[in-house]
């Protein structure tokens, strides 16, 4: 039982748990309130067919904050990776798949020029990405001329850019707002390669490869500072959350499941309590919300507690999800065209060219789903036997573009969309249809319903430059502290954004702890 007024964390998603763990370790009485029946929020593993389990949303980690991993001793709390340094395998119907990991090109047919350009390009991008990565652990700046101290992080960011050296700095300032396709066209001729790289730039966004800002989203995806590369947690993404929950509990935090918060009570400009669906009222003067900014500020808090312009900015925070999730229970291991058997468990990409991605994106602009969608596939059971009965497999697919705001709604579109996904898979993995035991489709609408993310957006909101750093979620509240005293945002809607990273939770906790009492 908690006796003193607890610090409440709303939502036991990975960021909520990270924040809870840090606060509990600092000696605070922490109460985590989770609406669902399990911890993890969208970083979860669920059984979608008898005996078959799968990562509910994100299925690979690449951004997990190494500081969090280390500080919270996640390994000690049970986090094991079934596979690290997962390779990317770009599928093609008519040729050998391209296989690469980091700057290393491992297999595939490419011209000499493309081959030579690959490593320098990826390395340069990694250097740029690390500039962004260095910001992950920092509170974004405020740009006030009369309070220069708040602008210090901006100056530090400037120094980070400058440290790249003159040539890289120039290039960084040139490419940072560009469309990934323009940059790729400068370097490569292979459509296949450009498609694979473009995929990293558009996955999880409502942007196409020809949209500006996609170099930025590419860099963000590669901004993880970890040494594990892309990794597959044993037991699915839920295992990450389990270890975080264990760390939080270990530090003394209490996690209450099935406790949906419906509103926040404010008194004299400060948080006074959280109200639960059950009618229960929990008094608290410090509340961290790991829910998305729109839910936190417009639904739980209410626009009336915000200034007009700020409320409008939150209202216009772009959060139309475009990625669906398809889970397939398979009676055996599928074979993919052009893929060596040892690569089936890697990260498989369906995006044969940047033009393919662009066509796919066009549909999303008009609120339709792509007839030729992009896919990121993972067959985790190759490395992780805990997810399916022996000899059987799970295929987890991120399918894009499947916009939240689909014209006509998702209800009647489910069946044709699932059929479409199978059709595309069949093309790349002939015979896969015969292995299917069961499928599950989670559209952005389902994701919103199940995990409470507005618009079903994986990152709680578009991760583009106009919604990043001191503009995330919107300017004025990018420093975790919300305008109502005692309320903090600690989820993916805050800097540095989405992906199973944990940095937002860590930074928010640090801000809470640093606050003058």
């Amino acid at each position, binding site marked *: 039982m908690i006796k003193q007024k607890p610090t409440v964390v709303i939502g036991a998603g990975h960021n909520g748990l990270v924040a809870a763990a840090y606060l509990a370790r600092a000696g605070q009485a922490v109460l985590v309130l989770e609406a669902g029946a399990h911890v993890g929020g969208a970083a979860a593993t669920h059984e979608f067919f008898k005996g078959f389990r799968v990562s509910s949303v994100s299925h690979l980690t690449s951004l997990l904050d190494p500081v969090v991993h280390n500080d919270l001793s996640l390994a000690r709390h049970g986090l094991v990776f079934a596979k690290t340094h997962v390779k990317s395998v770009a599928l093609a119907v008519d040729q050998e798949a391209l296989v690469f990991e980091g700057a290393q090109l491992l297999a595939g047919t490419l011209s000499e020029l493309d081959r030579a350009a690959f490593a320098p390009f990826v390395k340069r991008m990694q250097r740029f990405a690390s500039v962004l990565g260095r910001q992950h652990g920092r509170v974004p700046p405020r740009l006030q001329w009369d309070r220069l101290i708040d602008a210090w992080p901006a100056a530090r960011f400037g120094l980070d850019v400058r440290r790249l050296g003159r040539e890289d700095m120039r290039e960084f300032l*040139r490419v940072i707002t560009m469309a990934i396709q323009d940059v790729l066209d400068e370097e490569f001729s292979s459509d296949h390669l450009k498609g694979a790289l473009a995929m990293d730039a558009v996955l999880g966004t409502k942007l196409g490869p020809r949209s500006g800002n996609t170099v930025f989203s590419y860099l963000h995806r590669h901004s993880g500072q970890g040494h594990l590369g892309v990794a597959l947690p044993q037991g699915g993404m839920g295992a990450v959350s389990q270890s975080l929950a264990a760390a939080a509990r270990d530090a003394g935090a209490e996690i209450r499941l099935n406790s949906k918060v419906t509103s926040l009570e404010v008194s004299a400009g400060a948080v006074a309590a959280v109200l639960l669906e059950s009618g229960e009222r929990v008094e608290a003067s410090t509340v961290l919300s790991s829910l998305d900014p729109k839910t936190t500020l417009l639904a739980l808090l209410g626009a009336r507690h915000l200034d007009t312009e700020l409320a409008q900015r939150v209202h216009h925070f772009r959060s139309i999800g475009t990625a669906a999730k398809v889970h397939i229970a398979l009676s055996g291991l599928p074979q993919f065209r052009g893929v060596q058997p040892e690569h089936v468990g890697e990260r498989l990409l369906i995006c044969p060219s940047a033009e393919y991605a662009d066509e796919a994106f066009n549909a999303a602009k008009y609120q339709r789903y792509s007839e030729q969608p992009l896919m990121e596939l993972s067959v985790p059971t190759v490395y992780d036997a805990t997810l399916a009965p022996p000899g059987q497999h799970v295929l987890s697919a991120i399918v894009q573009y499947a916009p939240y705001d689909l014209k006509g709604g998702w209800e009647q579109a489910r069946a044709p969309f699932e059929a479409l996904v199978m059709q595309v898979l069949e093309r790349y993995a002939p015979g896969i249809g015969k292995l299917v035991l069961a499928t599950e489709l989670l559209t952005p609408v389902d994701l919103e319903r199940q995990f409470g993310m507005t618009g079903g957006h994986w990152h709680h909101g578009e991760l583009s430059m106009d919604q990043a750093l001191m503009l995330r979620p919107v300017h004025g509240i990018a420093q975790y502290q919300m305008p109502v005293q005692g309320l903090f945002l600690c989820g993916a809607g805050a800097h540095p954004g989405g992906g199973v990273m944990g940095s937002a939770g860590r930074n928010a906790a640090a801000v809470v702890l640093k606050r003058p009492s």
Partner: protein
Amino acid sequence: MYEREARCAFSRRQTSLATGQAVGSRVTTRYDAIVVGAGHNGLTSAAFLAKAGLKVLVLEKNPYFGGATVSRELHAGWIYSNCSYVCGLLRPEIYRSLDLGRHGLQVVPYGGGVGFTRDGDVLGGYVDKEVKRREIARYSSKDSDAYLRYGRDVMRQCRLVRSLLMRTPPDPTSLKPRDLKEMLYIGGEFGKLGEAAIYDTLRFYTMSIADYLSEYFENDMVKANFAGSGIIGTALGVYSPGTAYVLLHHYMGDVDGQMGAWGFARGGMGAVSQAIARSLQSMGGEIRVNSPVAQIVTRGGKVTGVALDNGDEFEAPVVLSALDPKRTFLGLLSEQSLDASLVKRARNFKIRGSSGKINIALDGLPSFPALGPNHPLLAGDMHFLDSLERFEKAYDDFKRGTWSKDPYLDLLMPTMTDPTMAPPGKHFMSVFVQYVPALIEGRAWTADDREAFKKTVFAQISRYSPDFEKLVLHAEVRTPQELESEVGLTEGNIFQGELTFDQLLFNRPFPGFAQYRGPAKGLYLCGSGSHPGGGVMAAPGANAAREVLLDLRRPTTVPGSWSDD
């Protein structure tokens, strides 16, 4: 072929101004500075250098000068502004400093613009702001008030950009005092915006025009009405991030202090280049037409002059190229003399053509039933896309390698305002068309393509003006291909390079070359490919001249910005 000299048809008093003719024999003459290309920027650079007392020569490949700022009589009795067609960006500091008014330039404002809807209504952009507000209120009363906020926010951004137009961009990687000072200046201008507006600025530069407009307006027609300015001349769609800035580029001009207003140069756009040329000549500058430059000659990393196609050579320690960066670096300079990285930069410079033009001589005034006769907005620009989706679909066609089947038109009849451009009762119609690719599915345009393209455009106009087609006496169809072959704009890009952040300010044309200086000593870039970019603004030309004079240690003749406080 004999090309009739561009001239002012109304006054008829103008005689040939170009002093030089093609020179038959091989000559070598020495100048203080040579400008390659007699577009408005080349002429502006030359004029400021002449004003400083330099002996200046401008070399022009065409038999007429003006580049894309021309008036051409391509159908007897009609004067076409056959490339650029409206004047609003021309920097007033330059106008005044070169005395363009007294050299014959007269910029007259025209009245507003109008968008047509498919169901027969219009959204009139009336000059009177209350009338305009009431007009928007017919579509959404909320939007009509939001328009005031929109105007305020765009003006805030305009003020910031305008403060940078007549300045040389700093190199952010440099620690030289001048660069640091300029960085501080920009920082200071930013700071003056106030905190919230600083963030808005950062967002503005990275947003799409569609997202930006959605923060103000709810009605699709109202959004469509403002979206055009976000894409004109750009190979991007309304949903592409970066297009909000392009909008700004079309708003930052003014006519006599009316920010965002556009006007006509009386006598067509050629009047602008004519006036600059007269100013130049009054100060002793020389222009030679029919003189295509083959090469900029360098020796030991220094410019020594230029060589023409016919072998003539002209010597000068200073050469300014008003051509676009691709033509300058990959055409006029020998590739061997350049660093491989610079060659790569020039090759990768984004200069996509995305627009075309149809110039039409009309036998009379076409009717637009949605407006009715004698409507004041017949004098303004007309647009026919009434939803963002139609804009974006027009872009999709372009991405797939063909012209938009339902294109964005910016249609104007300058003769509604300017009596000099056609016989009384007759009209000149200028139709700007977007999107139009430089190549059709990767191949050159054919005569059939051009005909089909014209049909597409005429069909859209005819839908709103049933009698338009039968009034057509002559039509000049200009695809990016003609813009490249005649005017020399690579890929037909009207701005000499895309106006996206990666090619703006210190990135224009490429990082490290944004201060108007080329790779060889004495070589300068003075065209729209340099900061602050395209449009008939003349600022790149003026800024380049300032840098030349700075290097020559001569007092500058180039004016700074007027303060607007």
